[in-house]
C-alpha cells in the first residue's frame, strides 16, 4: 500500500507539480492549499507532511507547532527564504528536514524517499543488502542464496561496506577498519582486495568504486 503524503502548498502550479511527482514516485499525496488543523484521524494514516512555510493567512511555523502538538509524523519544510532563523526555528519546532526553493522535482522525491526509508527488518547478525546476505556471526556471505568463500580481509571489507549500504566510504576509513591502522601502502592493498572480492561476487556488481572517495556497496540489487 502506498504511503500517504500530505502536501500543504498554496501555489497551485507548484502544488500540482509536487503532487504529480510524488504520485509518479509511488506515493499517495493529499494536497491542501491552506494550512488548517490536522484532525487525529487524518494524522493517523500519514507517512509524511510537506509544509510550505510561506502560506497566506497563517505562518507555516504556527501550523508546524500545531501539527507537532498532535502528531509525530515526519515533516519536510519548504522555504523560499535564505533565512537561518526560519530554518533553525522550523527544526527546533520539530521539522525533520527542510528544502530551499527552487528545487528539482527529483531532489524532492529523493528527500522524501530518504526520509521514509525504513531500515530493513533483519536479525542482528545477518545483513541483507541487495542480493547479498552477510552473516557476521558465522562470517558467511551468500549471493542470491549461493555461498561465497571469502578470506578474512575480504569478509571484513564487505562487512564494513555493508554497515552503510548505498553510502560511499573513504579508502582511509576502510583501510583502518579492514587492515588495521598504520599499515604501509594500505590503500593500494585495499584496491587489490576489492578487485578479488568483485571477482568472487560476480556476476553481481555490488561493489562500486567512487571517484575521489573509495567504495560503495549498492543498496539495490543490480538488474
Amino acid at each position, binding site marked *: 500500500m502506498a504511503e500517504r503524503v500530505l502536501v500543504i502548498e498554496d501555489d497551485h502550479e507548484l502544488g500540482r507539480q509536487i503532487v504529480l511527482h510524488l504520485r509518479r514516485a509511488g506515493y499517495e499525496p493529499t494536497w491542501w492549499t491552506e494550512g488548517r488543523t490536522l484532525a487525529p484521524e487524518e494524522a493517523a494514516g500519514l507517512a509524511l507532511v510537506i509544509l510550505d512555510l510561506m502560506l497566506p493567512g497563517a505562518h507555516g511555523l504556527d501550523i508546524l507547532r500545531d501539527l507537532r502538538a498532535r502528531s509525530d509524523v515526519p515533516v519536510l519544510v519548504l522555504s523560499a527564504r*535564505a*533565512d*537561518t*532563523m526560519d*530554518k*533553525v526555528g522550523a*527544526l*527546533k519546532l520539530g521539522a*525533520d*528536514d527542510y*528544502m*530551499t526553493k*527552487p*528545487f*528539482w522535482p*527529483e*531532489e524532492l522525491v*529523493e*528527500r522524501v524517499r*530518504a526520509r521514509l526509508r525504513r531500515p530493513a527488518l533483519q536479525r542482528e547478525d545477518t545483513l541483507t543488502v541487495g542480493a547479498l546476505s552477510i552473516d557476521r556471526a558465522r562470517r558467511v556471505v551468500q549471493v542470491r542464496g549461493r555461498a561465497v568463500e571469502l578470506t578474512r580481509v575480504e569478509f571484513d571489507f564487505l562487512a564494513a561496506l555493508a*554497515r*552503510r549500504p548505498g*553510502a*560511499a*566510504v*573513504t579508502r*582511509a*576509513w576502510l583501510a583502518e577498519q579492514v587492515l588495521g591502522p598504520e599499515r604501509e601502502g594500505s590503500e593500494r592493498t585495499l584496491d587489490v582486495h576489492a578487485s578479488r572480492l568483485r571477482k568472487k561476487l560476480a556476476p553481481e556488481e555490488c561493489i562500486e568504486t*567512487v*571517484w*575521489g*572517495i*573509495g567504495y*560503495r556497496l549498492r543498496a539495490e540489487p543490480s538488474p
Partner: protein
Amino acid sequence: MKLRLRLALTTIAVTIPMVVVLVLFDAVARHRAAEEALVGYTLARMQEPGGRDRCEADPAGWGGELPPGHGPPSRAGEDLRGREEGSREAGDLRGRAAAQGEAGDLRGRGAESDLRGREAEPLRGRDSKQSEGPEKLTGPGEPRGRPPPPLNDGQPRGRPPPPLDDGRPRGRPAVLFAYDAQLRSANPAAPAVAEPLAAAIATSEVATWPQSWPQSWARSWMSAEVEVLMRMPWGSGPCALVLAQGNTVPGWLGAVLPPTRIWLAPLVALFAAVLLAMGPVVGRIRRLTEAVRRSASAGYASAVPIDGDDEVGQLARAFEAAGQEVRAQLTAKDRREAALREFLANTTHDVMIPLTVLQGHLSELLEGASAGSAVDRGALVAAMGEAHYIAAIVHNLAIMAKIDADAPRLHREPVAMGVLVERVLARHRPIARRLRVELDGAVPESPLHVDADVTLLEQAVSNVVYNAIRHNRAGGHVAVLLEALADDRFRLRVVDDGPGVAADELARLVERGFRSDAARTRAPDGQGLGLHIAARVAALHDLELVFSSPPGGGLQVDFIGPRICAEVADSTQAAHL
C-alpha cells in the same frame, strides 16, 4: 527665556531676599542694642549715689528725656559708636538720640537753658536743681509735644560733647518714667504700662517686648520704638519700677550694615559684572548656534568653528565631533548604497543573461516540438543548467546582502555537517546527472557538528560544489569528503577532475568577479561570486579555505575548522540541523 534675562532675574531673585533679610536683621540688632543700652543706663542712673533719693523725692518729675552725652556706655553703645566717627562719652543710641540731631539739640537746649529757641549754641551743663526741669520742660512749646522733660538728674554737665553731624537721621531722645510696684506713676505724663510688659515684669527683673520670633522681629521691623520696664533693686516705693522709652534711629541702617548706602555699590557692581560677563558668552553661543545650523543645513559638510578653551569651546568641539561622526556615517552610507547599486546592476545583468539563454532554449524546444522533430536533449539540459545557475545567483545575492553589511550577524547553531553535505549533494545531483558529471560524497559514520550559520555555510559549500560541477566536463567527477580530523577539527574537501586552475591563479580565485581565463572561455556567464562568498563565509566562521591542485589535475578545495565535541552536539536540540 533668553539666557541674559534669566540670569538678570535670577540675580535679582537672589539679591532682594538677601537685602531684606540683612535689613531685617539690622533692625532687630538695633532694637536689641537699644534695649540693652536703655537698661544699662537706667540702672546706672538709679544706682549712682543719690540716684534713688532723687527719684523718690520727686517721682512725678523724675525722669524725662535723657540729656545728650549722658548715660553710661553700654556694649551695644560701644559697638555702635565704633562705627561712628568721633568719640562720645555716651555713644549709644540713647546718647545719639539725645545729643545729636535737630530735635535732640533743641530739646537739650530747652532743658538746659529753658529756652524754646533754636540757638545753635552747644549744650551747657544744667543746673543741679532737678526740680526745675520737669516743670519747664512740660511746657506747651515742646517741639514734638512730648511731655517728658529733658533729663534732670541734677548732675552738672561741664563738658558738653561736640555736636555730631554725620548726616544720619537721629531719633527722639529717650525718656524715663518712675512707677511704683503697682505700676502707678506719680508723673501724670507717664503712659500706662503695656500689657506684655506688665506681664513680663511679674516674673523678671527686666521686661522687654517678647523677644521670640516672629513677633519681636516683626515689631523691630515695623517700629523704631523701644520700651523696657525695669525693677529696681529695692523693689518698693514710688520708684520701684522704671519704664524707659527710646527708639532706634529711624531711617537707614547701622547696627550690622554700614550706615550709608555704600554697601549697595558692590551689589550693583556684582549685578553689572554678571551681565557684562554674560555678554560675550551669550554672543558666542549665538554664533555657535548659527554655525551649527549652517552646518546641519549643508548636510554637516562644513565644519563648526571652534574658539576658546572654555565650556562654550568644548560645546563647539562636541558639535564638531558629532558633525564629523554624521559626515562619516553619511559617507559610509553613500558608499554602501553605491556598492549595492553596482552590485544589483551587475547581478541583474548576470541573471538576465542566463534567463535570456533559457528563453532561447525553451523557444528552440517548442519549435522543435511544433515541427514534430525529436526532442533535443542537449537544449533541455542546457535549459536546466541555466535555471539551476539562475537559482544559484539569486541565492548568492541574498547571502551577499547578508554578509556585505558592516557587521554581518551570524545566527550560529550546531550544524550537522553530514546532513548539510547530503543536502548540497541532493541540490546539485539532478543537474550533475544531466551534465554527466559524477557527483558523490562521503560523510563519517558518526555525526559531525560545526558551530555555524547554516544558511551561510551551506551556500558556501554549495558554491564550491556547483563550481566544480559547472567547470567540469561530461564524464568528469566531483567528490565531497567530510572527515573528522584530530584535535576536534574537521575537513570538508571538494575535489574535481576538471581542467583545474593554474597555480598563479589559485590565490586570486576568491576575488569577487574573478574567473580564470579557461573558465571564461568555457562558461562566459557568471560573475565568479560563488567562490568569493565561500571565502567570505569561511573567514566569518574562522575556517581555513585552502585551494590546491591535486595530482592528476582538477581543483581541490578544503574547508578546515573546529568541530563541536560529540557530547556537546548531542545535547543540543538542533543536532540534526
